[in-house]
């Protein structure tokens, strides 16, 4: 049976995690894992709701050691959780606070945390074919679907990503992350990436620019920041002085080149983006300011089909179709065109929501905006709906600007000015949440008549 180590090359007394300015050693982490693994319930699957990044990873590792699978729900919405627990009835919920999932037994991680005794320093080996995680798609391309991930695939993605970014165990950089650890990118980049390279991570989850500054400041001198375009925008707007960092890694949404440039100047660093999707994990990276082309990670290759590309890797059970339209620049580099599910057809004109969204967001004064294709309406030609955050601009002004950059058949009817888009905690917009927003706004319109 092939196995892969739970962790990269740490010494027992290596700093494994930083809580504020205090290190936790690798030996202490492994002792916590061993203690917890002895006491976890017998269930096959676990929903790990632990808020603290370090304790979450103790729970994740203990579940791996016990051969249990961690479920990563796309959010905390009760209906979504109900659907997942319905399909995985033999589950329990691991918590460190008040969180719970209706209908599942809860196991409080702190019940063993304070009593853990020192175990021998042994890094567990985990079978590479063991299903470590089931990640659920967020729903932006349809109904949430389970995506099982083997331990071998998680390790391979972390190693290929780290190798691309030039990580080395001897560099002793600390990963500081603003992203939550309970979704695929957060798990990969804030936990598996450092721990597969024998590097420490910071346990905080900073939100405000001042938090980010302080988290970076409390980590040892060499750090990398794992974050999203939203947080980068906040930091750039604040123009606070930030401690020196080796590089920024951004994901979850496209990072505009101008913003990447501002961040490179402000932080005096390089900004990289990682491109991935739940079915395959991280698959490509680019330095945003260097241009639009993405470079595939090592270990992954394209397979060409008649009308699309898929990705092949030793660690993927079967080729995974690429969710976006791409054009190849070379055998291992590509441009993103648009997402398949984003194609719309209005009165015979084909368009891409991704493209339209980009044009909308490029309009001066538009802070955030999105198009929604509500679905076919039998009575008339269905038009697109748009939701736009643009303080100080009127709907008419935005429409007149849009008219100059898109085919008028795609002009939204209606265009709603909204205070904020219903992004979930990872910054994604689901079709469901947009449809719900449209319903609410329609009701308000009717009441106002």
């Amino acid at each position, binding site marked *: 049976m092939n196995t892969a180590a739970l962790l990269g090359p740490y010494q027992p007394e290596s700093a494994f995690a930083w809580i504020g300015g205090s290190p936790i050693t690798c030996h202490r982490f492994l002792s916590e894992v061993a203690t917890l693994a002895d006491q976890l319930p017998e269930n096959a699957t676990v929903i790990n709701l632990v808020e603290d990044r370090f304790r979450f990873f103790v729970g994740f590792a203990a579940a791996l050691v016990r051969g249990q699978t961690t479920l990563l729900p796309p959010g905390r919405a009760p209906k979504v959780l109900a659907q997942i627990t319905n399909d995985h009835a033999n589950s329990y919920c691991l918590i460190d606070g008040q969180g719970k999932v209706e209908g599942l037994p809860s196991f409080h991680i702190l019940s063993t945390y304070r009593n853990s005794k020192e175990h021998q320093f042994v890094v567990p080996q985990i079978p590479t074919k063991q299903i470590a995680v089931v990640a659920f798609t967020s729903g932006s391309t349809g109904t949430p679907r389970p995506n099982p991930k083997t331990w071998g695939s998680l390790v391979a993605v972390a190693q290929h990503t780290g190798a691309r970014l030039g990580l080395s165990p001897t560099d002793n950089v600390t990963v500081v992350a603003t992203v939550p650890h309970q979704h695929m990118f957060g798990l990969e980049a804030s936990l598996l990436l450092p721990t597969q390279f024998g590097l420490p991570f910071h346990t905080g989850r900073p*939100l405000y620019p001042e938090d980010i500054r302080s988290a970076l400041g409390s980590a040892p001198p060499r750090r990398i920041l794992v974050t999203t375009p939203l947080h980068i925008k906040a930091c750039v707007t604040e123009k606070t002085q930030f401690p020196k960092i080796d590089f920024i890694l951004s994901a979850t949404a496209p990072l505009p080149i101008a913003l990447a440039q501002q961040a490179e100047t402000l932080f005096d660093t390089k900004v990289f983006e990682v491109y991935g999707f739940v079915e395959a994990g991280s698959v490509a990276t680019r330095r945003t300011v260097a241009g639009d082309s993405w470079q595939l990670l090592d270990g992954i290759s394209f397979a060409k089909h008649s009308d699309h590309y898929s990705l092949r890797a030793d660690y993927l059970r079967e080729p995974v179709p690429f969710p976006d339209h791409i054009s190849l620049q070379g055998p291992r580099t590509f441009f993103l065109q648009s997402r398949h599910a984003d194609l719309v057809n209005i009165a015979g004109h084909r368009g891409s929501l991704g493209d339209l969204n980009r044009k909308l967001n490029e309009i001066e004064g538009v802070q955030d905006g999105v198009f929604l294709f509500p679905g076919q309406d039998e009575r008339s030609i269905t038009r697109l709906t748009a939701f736009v955050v643009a303080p100080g601009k009127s709907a008419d002004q935005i429409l007149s600007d849009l008219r100059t950059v898109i085919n008028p058949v795609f002009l939204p009817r209606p265009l709603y000015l909204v*205070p904020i888009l219903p992004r979930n905690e990872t910054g994604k917009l689901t079709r469901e949440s947009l449809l719900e927003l449209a319903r609410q706004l329609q009701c308000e319109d009717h009441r106002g008549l």
Partner: protein
Amino acid sequence: MSGVSPLEEEVAKLIVQTLNLKIDPVQIQPEQLLFGKGLGLDSIDALELSLAISQSYGYHIRSDDPEITATLASLRSLCTSIQKNRTK
């Protein structure tokens, strides 16, 4: 708006403008909860609002401030903190 200080009036306007809420600033009660069940703001609003406050008053909101939960509870508590920490 009786019993509302000029700063509270000003910050209520800032909240409505920044988050583009479709309400009149005078509708924000000084003791009403801003987040969760009250005005229904979330962490992304908090991020937006913190930027507006630091730009208007030079007060940088941070999560590790022991008073942070109390500060962000209501318009009144927020204004008390702004008053105490403002640099402009």
